[in-house]
């Protein structure tokens, strides 16, 4: 009985949480319209979420590209088609690895920063102080950060892909002696606009999901030191799981 009761409790809790996130998402979207009228705040948040994540994104993109080059070369040479390495690396990065790995890194770097920042504002009464000054924190704090995250993600994915391709090319062409002409021309010939679109749509969806989770967790932080820590952890876990779940759904939809 207790197992069934706790299972029901978990289910109810999960449903309540999903509902709360849904309502919060609606409220954020409503506040996005007035927030767009203050582009300076949004640019600042794009800088915070995007530019400050650049180094980790580029570094990881480079290594992911190099690994892709090695693995791709190893696999393709078994079939004597190592010239297709450029296509394999480009499609792998554009459609899958670029958006997914960037989203996971975004959740760990920018997502946690957003949650802890808003959470600390909650814990130190800054959000309440804003409300007392008749300033809506949803419009002034949450919406610009959410929009900033949504804009930053596709830009980060594009940079990740570019650096990743450079890494794959470095390993494939420079180290493994794949023909440079074949590498680039086959890539150019095989990669379609649809592939780029798929990656772009994924990046926007992941950006929306990760930013939403980050601002939601920050805004609903329990106002204690432990509460901020817990909210930050939840941001990483929820964003990562959500990214992979959405990735499966989107991939299935695009195929």
């Amino acid at each position, binding site marked *: 009985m207790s197992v069934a009761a706790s299972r029901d409790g978990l289910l109810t809790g999960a449903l309540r949480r999903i509902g709360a996130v849904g309502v919060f998402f609606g409220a954020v979207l409503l506040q996005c319209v007035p927030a767009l009228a203050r582009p300076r705040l949004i640019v600042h948040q794009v800088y915070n979420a995007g530019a400050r994540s650049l180094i980790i994104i580029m570094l990881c993109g480079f290594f992911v590209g190099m690994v892709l080059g090695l693995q791709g070369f190893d696999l393709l040479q078994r079939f004597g088609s190592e010239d297709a390495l450029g296509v394999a690396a480009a499609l792998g990065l554009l459609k899958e690895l670029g958006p997914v790995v960037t989203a996971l890194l975004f959740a760990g770097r920018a997502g946690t920063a957003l949650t802890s920042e808003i959470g*600390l*504002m909650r814990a*130190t*009464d*800054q959000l*309440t*102080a*804003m*409300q*007392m*000054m*008749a*300033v*809506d924190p949803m419009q*002034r704090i949450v919406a610009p950060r959410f929009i900033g995250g949504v804009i930053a993600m596709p830009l980060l994915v594009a940079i990740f892909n570019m650096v990743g391709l450079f890494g794959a090319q470095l390993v494939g062409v420079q180290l493994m002696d794949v023909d440079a002409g074949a590498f680039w021309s086959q890539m150019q010939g095989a990669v379609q606009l649809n592939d780029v679109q798929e990656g772009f749509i994924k990046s926007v969806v992941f950006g929306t999901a990760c930013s939403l989770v980050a601002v939601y967790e920050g805004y609903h932080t329990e106002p204690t030191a432990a509460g901020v820590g817990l909210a930050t952890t939840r941001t990483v876990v929820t964003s990562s799981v959500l990214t992979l779940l959405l990735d499966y759904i989107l991939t299935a939809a695009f195929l």
Partner: protein
Amino acid sequence: MTDSNRPTSASAQADDVVVEVKGVHYAVGRREIFAGLDVIARRGRITAIMGPSGTGKTTLLRLITGQTAPTSGELHVWGERVSTLARRDLYALRRRMGMLFQNGALLTDLDVFENVAFPVREHTRLSEPLIRELVLTKLHAVGLRGAARMMPSELSGGMARRVALARAVVMDPELLIYDEPFVGLDPISMGVIVRLIRQMNRVLGITSIVVSHDVRELAAIADDSYLLSQGRCVASGSPEELHRSESEVVRQFLDGVADGPVPFHYPAPDYRDQLLGVGRRAQRGRAA
């Protein structure tokens, strides 16, 4: 009752009421915080809300500012029933108020100048030179013009509260609410804050509500005082009247007596029984 601006007739008194708390009940879960609370704050006066820790003083401020709603009873600010106001109306009401938080609640990513300028930038379209003049005037009033470019993390507790006070008055509010303004301050900072509260009230004519348990400081500045205990207002009047009171609750609070109508011990099982584990042994016996 010697103050010249104290209203003389009943109708004048009614006109002068800024905040009226009438028979308010408020509970968190099963715990009742207020059980029929009555408080009135009048225009241009400093109203002190006193009481031991945990009596719901800060909760009362949250009710007055519409951050939470009473379980029952009525709470009016400038004649408006706060708990029934739509968000837009509530925000319009709050624009006429200023609030000083216990910890200052300064925005940590903005410097002192920008903190004070924050409400001005949000609510007006004043030119930059005008905002600068306004902010520097307010910072000068609290003695921190020289700290305009410091970050909140570089300020002492007293300085942070003075900056928060400058921010609270920058929009020239009609009602200023202070939540424990003296907590954790050294005597000099406390004296400065007491002087500033009095100045804001006397010079600018701002109605003030001060929540605190610092009896001496409040006695120096308050026109009216309310003493809360166990969910009700147990005494009210001028600080002098409260000091003359023979009520046990008032005497315990003002004289700082550890035990009395407000018990020293939080409700607990019998000390001897608990130490000897009588209850636990009996429980184990029943379980066996």
